[in-house]
């Protein structure tokens, strides 16, 4: 009996040890589960967190929002917008109809319109536009994959046809002399050639340069006069920074220094159809990473910092396109699909969401797939309201 009792006790003791072992094992397994769960969470959230997305807090201060003051109506698929250095002229590209560049004064009167030479409405796709400190107009033509350069009155000067080549420089390289006065030249993408007609001379077809790494879209000038370009080549969606001093000289001698960063993809330091690039007062870059639905930030030495605006909350970005930074270090983002302008404060350590303005609609103060934005020195905001065929004007 005692033996049996001892045996029972021994068995109970043995059972307890077994159970303790089992509980310990379960604890280990649960720890594994927890680790696994956390690992999976990090995989799941690879797009959205990565531990580097700027957290956006809403500024609780009272901030005056822009007021709608009017619109320019005589447009067809208004796309890009830029302002002359003195603010007296507003340049707008059209994406439909005749696809012209239209120039308005501040009152909305149409001053003139023009288009790239050698093109018709069906073989030019005018998109973003920027104006240099000297007042030259730069326009990206997606069809020809060039950046056309005009003077303030719409007279064609030249075109950037590859990363480091203008038409006039190419003509000089191939013919031995720069284009003569009153000559006509343009780039013919279908034939991959520069069409050059020197004055009254015979037209020449000059095979063009290698353009395999060139497909410009977004254009902006920074405060230093550098031209910021988004370049969309398969597998290589990049930001290109063309040195400002290169535009001071004749474009026939254009030999810019070029900085580049980024690649194509959805990783944090990659882009998917970036549209616009702007820089703040400290020199940091802000890129509207369109198809990734976020704003990507890079340091002035072109190191990736973070991104913000991505997600599924009410204030998250859908497809950001046009960007502008005003004198208050506020970043204005045109959210084309979101149908609003989202404003962020960049003055702090991290971007801070301030407010939205506008919403979808066909009436005043509404947007229908807006695209681009520009703000003059007086705080007047010009927004291309593409679907409504107008430029919507707001005042800070």
């Amino acid at each position, binding site marked *: 009996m005692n033996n049996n009792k001892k045996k029972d006790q021994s068995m109970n003791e043995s059972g307890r040890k077994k159970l303790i072992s089992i509980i310990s094992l379960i604890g280990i397994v649960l720890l594994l589960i927890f680790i696994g*769960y956390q690992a999976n969470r990090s995989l799941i959230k690879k797009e959205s967190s990565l531990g580097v997305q700027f957290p956006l807090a809403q500024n609780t201060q009272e901030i005056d929002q822009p007021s709608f003051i009017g619109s320019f109506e005589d447009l067809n698929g208004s796309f890009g917008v830029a302002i002359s250095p003195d603010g007296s002229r507003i340049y707008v590209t059209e994406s439909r109809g005749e696809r012209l560049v239209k120039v308005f004064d501040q009152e909305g009167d149409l001053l003139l319109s023009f288009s790239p030479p050698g093109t018709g409405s069906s073989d030019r796709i005018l998109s973003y536009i920027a104006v240099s400190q000297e007042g030259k107009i730069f326009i990206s033509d997606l069809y020809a994959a060039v950046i056309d350069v005009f003077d303030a009155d719409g007279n064609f000067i030249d075109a950037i046809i590859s990363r480091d080549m203008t038409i006039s420089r190419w003509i000089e390289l191939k013919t031995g002399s720069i284009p003569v006065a009153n000559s006509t030249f343009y780039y013919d993408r279908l034939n991959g050639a520069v069409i050059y007609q020197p004055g009254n001379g015979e037209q020449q077809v000059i095979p063009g340069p290698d353009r395999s790494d060139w497909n410009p879209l977004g254009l902006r000038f920074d405060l230093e006069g550098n031209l910021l370009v988004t370049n969309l080549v398969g597998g290589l969606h990049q930001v290109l920074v063309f040195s400002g001093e290169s535009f001071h000289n004749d474009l026939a001698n254009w030999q810019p220094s070029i900085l580049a960063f980024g690649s194509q993809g959805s990783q944090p330091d990659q882009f998917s159809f970036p549209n616009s690039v702007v820089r703040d007062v400290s020199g940091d870059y802000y890129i509207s990473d369109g198809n990734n639905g976020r704003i990507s930030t890079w340091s002035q030495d072109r190191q990736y910092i973070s991104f913000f605006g991505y997600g599924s909350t009410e204030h998250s970005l*859908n497809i950001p396109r046009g960007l502008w930074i005003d004198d208050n270090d506020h970043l204005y983002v045109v959210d084309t699909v979101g149908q609003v302008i989202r404003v962020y404060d960049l003055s702090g350590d991290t971007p801070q969401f301030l407010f939205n303005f506008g919403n979808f609609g066909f009436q005043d103060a509404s947007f229908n797939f807006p695209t681009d934005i520009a703000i003059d020195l007086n705080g007047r905001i010009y927004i291309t309201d593409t679907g409504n065929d107008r430029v919507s004007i707001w005042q800070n």
Partner: protein
Amino acid sequence: MGESISLILEMIVFRYGRINRDGIKSTGSGRDIMTVLRIRKSESFWMKKSSVLKKIIILLSIGLAFGLMMPSGEVHADNGPHGDLSSNTNTCSICHRLQSSEPAYTGQNAPDPDDLCLVCHNGTGAGTNVVDGVYMAVGSPQDLQGDSFGSLLSGGFTNTLMATEWTGKAAFDSTYNAVSRPITSSHDLGNALNVWGSGAQNSPAVGMNLKCISCHNPHGNSGWDVTSQSGSALLSSTYRLLRWQPLDSEGFTSSRVNVNWSGGSFPLNLQVPSLSGWLIPDNYPTSEWYTIGIKGSQAFCDYSTGTTDNTYRLDSFNYVEAAVNISYFCAQCHDNYFNNRNLFARNDESQYCGTPGVPRQSGATLLPTVKPNRNGNNSKDPANCLPVYDNSGRLTGWTDIRGSGDSAHQYRHDSGDVLRNSSDGTFAAQDASSLGRSCLVCHVAHGTSAVVDSGGDASNLEAVGRSQAGDSALLRMDERTICLSCHLGDVSLTTGPDAEASHNQFNPLEGVQCARCHSIHSARD
């Protein structure tokens, strides 16, 4: 997830706790599997049970841990071109304004969904610029055209980059004269359209209003069914995200069905039954396999019901040829034009012409042999050809299709064959065999810049009451020169009194001349 873990933890610890507290003497009325532990058993049984249970728990837990560590699965098998639509993505918010009170893409006061598509497909957010009909290859490594800047197979809705001009030779030069011009006809987005080849005889369905999403499913089609079509088969990627059936169309299923696909397995490696018709899926709703073909290839399916890892392959089998290609998709609206050559017996009498005024089978003569004399007079003038119907109104030799009796539809371009290669808006010479007469060989899906403006006799055309003068009808080439791309040998372009061939008086370079005598599509309209 945290709650689940806590629950598991609580359950296990609690149950073992009870075991510890109560020992094996406990006979509590447990409600779960652990109850078995509270039933007194012999020590050996308990020890054995405990050991087994321990192993089970460990294995299950480890399995659970590994399972949780695995990345989440994809929502759609193909993902389409619209990126990573995995179940845990935020990508949806790119196009959908989640948690927003803003209107969705329906209703009068809502954004136009076509505008949403064109936000990117204007070249600023996608390589396929459907506005201008060009493939810009901006940012997309998948350059299907083999070029960094080429024509879209489908043309554009505003402009197209096409070589619509007759080159003077049947063999096309892909680089010949491709220019960008405004469209002359299109599947006009947002406007009511006539649907030719549909509805009652000579009265096309009116008022179909197309949008991008009418034909394309932006979410992708494979994997989970996002078009409310029931089924669970996982399919390979689809061609251009085309739907099985355009939204708002009445749909079309070939009437010749020899195998009910919703039933048994697909007949692997089965060849086309000779002259007895072909196997057309009748109502298999989940797949869009007919659109999976890539250009210039015949795409085939080895689908088996209930198998989730179906694959498609390109090979020489032709057992689903009739429906695998794009024409079957077109037929979902233009159903009267669908006439796959494998559907019917080869003694299709509709391709014969009879003695003028005698619309019957006897005396029928093969059309190519009908040549008027130099004076243009011939007892078998093709202009007088009439379809060959039997007394019941059926086309002779067609056992299942009732002919309409419309004299304008006496010829028969098989339209259900393979989608062929195309570049610069035309099709490549190597594909100009007689085997493939897909809709897209002659037509584009979005819009064309072909010109039909040089007049000609517009009478006796494809549909009574419809003048085709000036209507480019989504054709790939100017006037009716698309006909010459295959039939140049049948036509003498030499004009003048000594010209022997009859067609000199009907210069196909002018207007609608080919269509004056010949109906282009099937004889079913």
